[in-house]
């Protein structure tokens, strides 16, 4: 390969995805009326906030060479748990949030221990946990959705309500330049993305987690506590998934058993698209956030162009496949050593 061609490929790997995204924005901006407005931008952000937060959790497990398939189930469990705590137990929003976060951490801990202590392969352990949670969250209400006034299995009526403070988490909008512009959930997404990025890129713990993902044996022989870091990664994933579930509950205002079906696949897609951003070829927080944003822009633009809703999954899948080609085929060619 001659040098010019080589550097062209490198440029393409590095900036290809960002260019594609810029092109998409220009395209939708010129064809879809009202696409290039602050409210449209905020709508996109809001639509990706929950999947983005889940995707950042998956990213943490991908970094240590694992995979967490239980995030969607953790999120819907948090949705049901927070509703149950407030509507049936009639406790405050504080307890709802606290118990959800503890539940997420506990699920992550169990996932991690299944993987490092019981040696269950990561996909299988978290798949098992997914089924377990999907089932468990329906038992207390005998499969029904949770809302104020529902009748309980013991014949009584649930009188609790979602507190205003809790609903604010999912619905409140801050004034930023324009009144009522910035949803609180978007603030959470940005704060969590920055925190995960800082943790993974700038701290020694993040560095060790990347080392574990690349060669766990070498990391162990260099003195890293591999098992502890793996468990921590699954706990991060569990906690972030429960945050996503809390925000979903706050947005819906009821414990809807049918919501959150797409969370897992969308989050995984965002994290994998993230591999391609800036030619990282590895899981990374910045790429994941961009990946989530990319999917959001695409879907919002298509919606505004009146593309039918049922084409959305197809287009997400196509984007994912293109991103994976960017990551694996092109970067493997660019960086192949002589071995």
């Amino acid at each position, binding site marked *: *390969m001659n*040098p010019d061609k*080589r550097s062209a490929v490198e440029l393409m790997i590095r900036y290809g995805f960002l260019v594609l995204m810029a092109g998409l924005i220009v395209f939708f901006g010129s064809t879809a009326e009202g696409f290039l407005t602050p409210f449209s931008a905020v709508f996109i952000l809001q639509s990706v906030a929950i999947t983005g937060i889940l995707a950042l959790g998956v990213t943490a497990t991908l970094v240590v060479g694992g995979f967490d398939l239980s995030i969607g189930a953790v999120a819907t469990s948090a949705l049901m748990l927070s509703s149950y705590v407030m509507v049936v137990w009639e406790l405050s929003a504080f307890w709802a949030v606290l118990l959800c976060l503890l539940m997420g951490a506990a699920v992550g801990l169990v996932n991690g221990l299944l993987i490092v202590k019981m040696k269950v392969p990561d996909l299988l352990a978290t798949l098992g946990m997914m089924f377990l949670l999907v089932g468990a969250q329906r038992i207390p209400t005998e499969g029904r959705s949770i809302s104020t006034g529902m009748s309980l299995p013991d014949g009584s009526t649930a009188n609790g309500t979602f507190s205003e403070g809790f609903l604010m988490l999912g619905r409140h909008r801050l004034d930023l330049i324009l009144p009522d512009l910035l949803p609180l959930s978007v603030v959470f997404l940005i704060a969590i993305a920055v925190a995960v990025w800082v943790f993974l890129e*700038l*701290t*020694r*713990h993040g*560095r*060790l987690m*990347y*080392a574990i*993902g*690349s*060669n766990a*044996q*070498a*990391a*162990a*022989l*260099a*003195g*890293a*506590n591999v098992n502890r870091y793996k468990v921590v990664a699954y706990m991060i994933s569990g906690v972030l998934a429960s945050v996503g579930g809390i925000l979903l509950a706050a947005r819906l205002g009821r414990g809807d058993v049918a919501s959150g079906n797409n969370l897992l696949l969308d989050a995984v897609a965002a994290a994998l698209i993230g591999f391609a951003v800036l030619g990282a070829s*590895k899981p990374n927080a910045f790429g994941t956030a961009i990946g989530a944003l990319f999917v959001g822009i695409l879907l919002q633009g298509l919606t505004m162009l009146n593309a039918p809703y049922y084409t959305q999954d197809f287009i997400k899948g196509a984007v994912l496949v293109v991103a994976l080609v960017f990551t694996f085929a092109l970067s493997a060619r660019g*960086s*192949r*050593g*002589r*071995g």
Partner: protein
Amino acid sequence: MTEATIKLVGLRKAFGKNQVLRGVDLDLAPGQVTVLMGANGAGKSTLVKVLCGVHAADAGTVTLAGVAFAPASPSAALRAGVVTVHQNINDGVVPDLDVASNLLLDHLADGAGAFLNDRKMRARAREIAAAVGLEVDVARPVAGLALADRQLVSIARAMAQEPQLLILDEPTSSLSATEAERLFALIERLRAQGVAILYISHRMSDIRRLADRIVSMRDGAISGRFEGQPLDYSGAVRAMLGHEITEVDITIPTPGAPVLEARGLVLRPGARPFDLTAPQNEVIAITGLVGSGKTALAEVLFGLAQPTAGSLRLDDAPYTPRTATEAVAAGVFLCPKDRLINAVVADFDITRNLTLPFLRRHSRAHFLRRASENATATRMVGEMGVVCQSPADGILTLSGGNQQKVMVARWMAEASRLLILDEPFQGVDIQARRDICAKIRATAQTRATIVFVAELDEALEVADRILVLSEHSIVGAHRNENIDVAAIMAEVVDAAPETTRELA
């Protein structure tokens, strides 16, 4: 000379800007063992990969028995009769499958009908195994075999193809002396059958044993051809390096106070207890066959395994590491063998590989300080003489010898009390070996140093004192001065354990 089986003319191959093969011309005749020597990065591995169909050449021609040969894939090369046994054993076997399936893998991959007949397969597999002297139950999974047996499986698998050209890339690097001897006998039999053999090795003992002809390679081209008995070994080394290699001259310093003291150490049930003292300012080489307990001892000293009995003291205080983390904290560092499995973090650049064990020192309140990392990397790259464009180069862009220098540098970047190096010269050319040796000796006064090596030549180059390990116990100690090599060899081999092959 007989008609060449395989003829390479003007073979060129580049990876990006890096011209790895710059016009290789080479003939390989049937019934002849051609040893290919070359420093790390000379292009040997790339040449092999072109011949076995992993890479396509950019220019040049290869003819096999008079027919143009440009395999598009490893299986195409196999079908044409070019068989390769790779250095990395696990490249040659599928650990989860049983021995029979492994032996017939190429046959299976060819599409031998949709259904498998276990009984027939096993019978055929037993024939193939018997032909190379492999005595294992063919129904056993390969993952359960000793490393040496796994290699024999990969060689036996290659033999099943009735090759015209057999390429062996450092095949003895994990074999014991008896097992290597079995391999040599096999190679000699194939030579007599008229197979052309290309044998790549850094091991002088292998080369002396087998070579009909030596070809030296340097900077991507053939730099010397040596034929006719006696072979000109020093000429071949000179052609490979481009300069003379000087003899190593060891001056033994006065050892300091004991750093590590082991008393009554028993490495496994039934082994004889032994004592070991490693003083400051002394480099100890511990040698022995594969399976003699070198790895077991290294693991005990580094906290990866617990001894059956005995006690360890470090700087006159009890030393009972239970994990690698504890050993490192106590100042005991281990540079492990098999760098690609145990040491190299492939996704990281040189700097990040170097600083991996000591991130705490390069960080403040959990946050890494890049300036501190970069300073250490620049210093160590300079001190070790790692050949690279910058410490930000990916670790896999380096040649094997330079990768190994980075792995050794990783553990020399910080002061240690006891530095253990397990096979630090594995897959490393003679020049890089000398560089690493010199660095180990030059920094030895601040600590105790233990180097585990299977090759006696390497022990003689690096050590002040040589200990011989056999049957998991120390059977001899020699000051590296006017040494009686034959006596050491006798200790190494005499008490050799029965090959640890389980009866299946």
